């Protein structure tokens, strides 16, 4: 046994090269799931092993890293991944979307528009959008190859038949560059329009499923829908009760066991920035707001 040798950003260079090759291929074929030899990472599957591997292989010493989990910079997942890279790569970390060059995210796209100098890395649990309809991997890969995507609409049809509208609220399927149907990872469908024509490079890593896919900058991404039931992003009909934002995606926070609740921005950096700029909570008529449904 040789002693463990330190390498920048945890993974050895050979592994990083392998992952970079997969990333390059993914960028060359937007939306196509490229298989890669996913490594075991010092964290459990489901905690972002795919995203961490992608981040590790694109990170340079000059990069500034931001990690968000459901939009928040201060949850366990985000904090521990940030610490991981501070320790293994010594890179600077930040919570500011503007400052970051690499943003690893779980289930959100930041509210602040991204720029060409940034890379957004998604953690993906199940990369295959057709998985729940067609369990056979051989069959789904053939369907992608031949772009037989009728089945995806069967899912949306079922939604409308059952609920009267498309009730899929997250992991809403999209078509990338008019070719591949892709699962955008479990982001709320509120974020779907931000996928399209985004100046930043978007990379998706699924560790357990061993797949990497990508949306290159300025690529057209369309959410699937029906002519008579068009795609509609969903947002709670409220304002953030900390910063008053009326355009951000909101989390519903239950504040006691009597049905009180409040809505706050899910993107903590966006909310904090706004508050620092002097925005405040909207005037409320009473503290005990009745529970709404």
């Amino acid at each position, binding site marked *: 046994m040789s002693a463990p040798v330190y390498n920048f950003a945890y993974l050895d260079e050979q592994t990083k090269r392998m992952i970079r090759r997969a990333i390059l291929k993914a960028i060359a074929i937007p939306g196509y799931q490229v298989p890669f030899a996913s490594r075991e990472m010092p964290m459990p599957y489901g905690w972002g092993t795919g995203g961490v591997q992608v981040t590790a292989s694109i990170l340079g010493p000059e990069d500034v890293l931001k990690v968000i989990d459901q939009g928040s910079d201060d949850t366990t997942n985000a904090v521990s991944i940030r610490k991981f890279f501070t320790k293994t790569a010594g890179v600077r970390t930040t919570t500011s979307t503007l400052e970051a060059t690499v943003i690893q995210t779980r289930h959100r796209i930041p509210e602040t528009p991204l720029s060409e100098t940034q890379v957004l890395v998604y953690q993906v649990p199940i990369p295959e959008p057709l998985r729940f*309809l067609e369990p056979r991997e051989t069959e789904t890969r053939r369907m992608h190859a*031949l772009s*037989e995507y*009728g*089945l995806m*609409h*069967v899912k949306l*049809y*079922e939604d*409308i*038949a*059952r609920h009267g509208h498309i009730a899929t609220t997250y992991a809403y399927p999209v078509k990338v560059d008019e070719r591949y149907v892709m699962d955008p990872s479990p982001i709320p469908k509120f974020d779907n329009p931000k996928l399209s024509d985004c100046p930043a490079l978007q990379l998706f890593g699924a560790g357990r499923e061993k797949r990497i896919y990508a949306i290159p900058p300025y690529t057209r991404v369309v959410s699937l829908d*029906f*002519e*008579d*039931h068009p795609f509609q992003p969903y947002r709670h009909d409220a304002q953030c009760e900390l910063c008053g934002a009326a355009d951000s995606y909101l989390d519903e926070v239950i504040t006691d066991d009597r049905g009180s609740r409040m809505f706050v921005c899910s993107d903590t950096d966006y909310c904090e920035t706004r508050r620092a700029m002097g925005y405040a909570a909207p005037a409320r008529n009473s503290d005990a707001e009745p529970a709404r449904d």
Partner: protein
Amino acid sequence: MNFIENEQPLLVAEGLTKWYGRRLGCRDASFELYEGEVIAVVGESGSGKTTLLQLLSGQIEPSAGQIRYRLRDGAIADVWSMSEPMRRFLFRTDWGYVHQDPQLGLRMGVSAGGNVGERLMAVGWRNYGDIRGAATDWLARVEIPEDRIDDTPRAYSGGMRQRLQIARNLVTAPRLIFMDEPTGGLDVSVQARLLDLLRRIVSEMRIAVIVVTHDLAVARLLSNRIMVMKEGEVIEQGLTDQVLDDPHAPYTQLLVSSILPA
């Protein structure tokens, strides 16, 4: 049947042979099928009926032989030399395949409407109202009440499942349907109703059918022509009534005489 003179056959099979390793599946099957014609393939289990059906429907590749199909535009295409996307497109538009077990042919977790609409969505229908309208229409044609459209096939009886499977296949107005024991596993009265329905739809839409069955009564009721198979080979073929009333091959005689008198 009133065949138009000089009409081109819809499907031509020539010397179809399938070996599973050293075991024979089916040997040297040749025949022609015309539009609107119903052919029954009968024989005991293991005689190669299902192999023949799968060969014809392009699901397994023959070891030897050829299948030629006349496309809607009149061009004759060799099923196994056309590209895979085209073959699959053909399979879900111009052809249909009714499985013996409806669970294989249906998506059990998807509502009846979704099951019928799937083929339409696969060929590019993107209007929910239109898809639902077509599904409602087809459910009515196979005698499934309209208020069952949002139930999954799990909540259906065996006969209803089989009728749903037929609707799902017919929604794109195919010209050729393959059926593998469509009435297997159904009780006699449900069988009779299903056969009635099939006979009506097939003659209304002038669909060509290749039906595999071990039930000679089904063959007599549905088919114009019949092929008798034994140990992978077609031992006798001809008009259904002729073959059943005057069987030549000893095996066919045995088969016909083994029907219990009603």
